[in-house]
């Protein structure tokens, strides 16, 4: 067979065009893809597993109900290794796939800060669980939060401790990462407004092996109540045990990690009778109860906020894409921001123009290992 110049040119053209044609066909494939960065490895790997399960359960339900824009939703997961470099790499891998229409980022504020510039550059909606208030107030219009931010948690912790428990000498303990620093600051500000500025404001570095100096500082401060923002459950477990061993038994109101399944397992009785602000509390609403049942049936463990926020994020994102009738990022953004009175596992979503969906917290108590809902405090400002 003789190869003519025309045949050769046609072959070259087909060779060059083929990858684009395949990619284009792939982009218009049968599924709508959602990317998810989750800690599959690293210190938060256990809670990362819960987050993935929450997202998958939501997507299963969405698909059963007709899917997204008439197609099945598909979750593409990348391991963020529980580190900032890890999530930057994971997000860049996902962002390189043009057919992914939206993303689930991290529950850890410090990791959301790490990917924020890339999110802005990409210009596609990213659902987040990080609670540093700054995340939705620093000009990044593509971040949408599915947990109440720490300006609310700080106010709820302060309000509950001062008004309900009647304590005014506070020790504030927080990690020194973005989440802990912002949370500690929010709590200190709220306490100062209530006329009870903390007698101790103590930071600690993540992955500490020993908290004896911290416990002794709390003891020496004369505090009669402790407010805390812990990033990792391992740290919380070690601290809780040492706190009790060294004889500190003052009331303790903590950020949501204090009622996480992992923390409850590690610390055990050391966390009995503590209070927590929880964005997810099973008895707080009908939506929370419904999620609790689905999750328990499927995963066989108690649900917590690690899984509830990703469950809600998938549901809201899917509904927004359907409402927008398009995968155009700007239209999805508008649809998310217009989401009002959406009954989720974490509560009722009413998105503001900053991208915050929730505006209140639940107070729960650890009653011998059982998390008991006390009350919900909602803010309108």
């Amino acid at each position: 067979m003789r190869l003519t110049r025309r045949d050769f040119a046609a072959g070259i053209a087909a060779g060059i065009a083929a990858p684009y044609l395949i990619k284009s066909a792939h982009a218009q494939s049968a599924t709508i893809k959602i990317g998810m960065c989750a800690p599959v490895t690293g210190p938060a790997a256990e809670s990362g597993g819960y987050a993935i399960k929450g997202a998958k359960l939501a997507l299963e339900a969405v698909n059963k109900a007709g899917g997204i824009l008439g197609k099945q939703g598909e979750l593409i997961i990348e391991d963020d290794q529980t580190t900032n470099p890890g999530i930057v790499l994971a997000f860049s891998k996902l962002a390189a796939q043009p057919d992914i229409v939206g993303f689930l980022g991290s529950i850890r504020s410090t990791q959301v800060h790490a990917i924020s510039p890339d999110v802005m550059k990409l210009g596609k909606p990213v659902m987040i669980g990080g609670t540093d208030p700054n995340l939705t107030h620093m000009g990044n219009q593509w971040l949408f939060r599915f947990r109440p931010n720490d300006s609310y948690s700080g106010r709820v912790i302060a309000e509950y401790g001062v008004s309900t428990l009647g304590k005014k000498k506070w020790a504030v303990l927080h990690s020194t990462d973005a989440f802990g620093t912002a949370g500690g600051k929010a709590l200190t500000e709220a306490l100062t407004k209530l006329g009870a500025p903390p007698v101790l404001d103590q930071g600690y570095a993540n992955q500490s092996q020993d908290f004896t100096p911290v416990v002794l500082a709390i003891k020496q401060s004369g505090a009669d109540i402790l407010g805390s923002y812990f990033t990792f459950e391992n740290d919380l477990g070690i601290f809780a045990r040492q706190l009790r061993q060294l004889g500190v038994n003052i009331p303790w109101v903590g950020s949501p990690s204090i009622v996480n399944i992992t923390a409850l397992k590690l610390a055990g009785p050391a966390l009995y009778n503590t209070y927590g602000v929880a964005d997810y509390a099973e008895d707080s609403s009908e939506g929370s109860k419904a999620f609790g049942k689905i999750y328990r049936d499927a995963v066989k463990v108690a649900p917590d906020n690690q899984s509830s926020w990703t469950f809600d994020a998938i549901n809201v994102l899917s509904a927004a894409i359907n409402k927008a009738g398009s995968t155009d990022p700007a239209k999805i953004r508008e649809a998310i921001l217009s989401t009002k009175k959406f009954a989720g596992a974490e509560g009722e979503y009413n998105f503001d123009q900053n991208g915050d969906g929730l505006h209140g917290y639940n107070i729960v108590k650890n009653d011998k290992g059982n998390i008991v809902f006390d009350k919900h405090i909602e803010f309108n400002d």
Partner: protein
Amino acid sequence: MDLALQLLFTGIGIGAVYALVALGFVLIFRATNVVNFAQGEFSMVAAYLMVVAVEAGLPYWAAFIVALLGMALLGVVFNLGVYYPLRHRTYLPVIIATIGASILLANSVLAIYGPQPQVLQGWFDTPGIQLGPVYLDSQYLLIIGVTICLVIFNFWFFEKTLLGKKLQATSQDKEMASLLGISVSTMIMITFIYSAVLGGLAGILVAPVLFVSIQMGSTIALKAFAATIIGGFGDVAGAIIGGLALGVIETFGAAYISVPYKDGFAFLVLVAFLVFRPQGIFGERVAEKA
């Protein structure tokens, strides 16, 4: 004063953990002239073995023996799989191989057992005792006790027994030891087994305090490595003193200067030693060694 006593106890307790892992570093360094960066993972693997054995229903003491036997086996496998094939190469490929092995061990445990951190009960039902103003955590008391016993055992073993002397001879000059009829490869095998067991012992002892997680080994190993340099690389007494010193320094530094910079104090001391006394507290001078 009460505060200082409490800090001193905790500092010695956590320092003893560093010392145990540092001891493993030193023994392998002496025998092979390379740093085993998987030493921390030995601790993690042993802690998981202990959890699995306890969950399987074995009594605590039996689980302890099973875990240590498992570590001895890991020492054999590690020697044959990581060190032995590269023994005639320079130190660099061996060090890189130990880093690779450490990643392999961590990810293998992750794949087999999953990411869930585990709780391992301590040896004693009583969590601790109050001695005047100082609370003595029973697990830390055990760790300190075991460290003291190991110091005595090491002295006896290396100075008073024939096997210990053969190990010392091998670490000092392999060629001469070989000429004297000592089986160098056997001595190195024994060193790896002993180091794996020591690292495992540290992991099992510290697990009730720090919980059992994939990361537990690397966190301890980093400090233990610093302790080894401070004490003098290659010196058994140096590893113990370095470990204890590091534990006490970081605990007091955190209490009296700054909690968030606790790790910083440990590494500040390390940098100071590297600048002003690179041979460490007990180490011989590099010039003399050369």
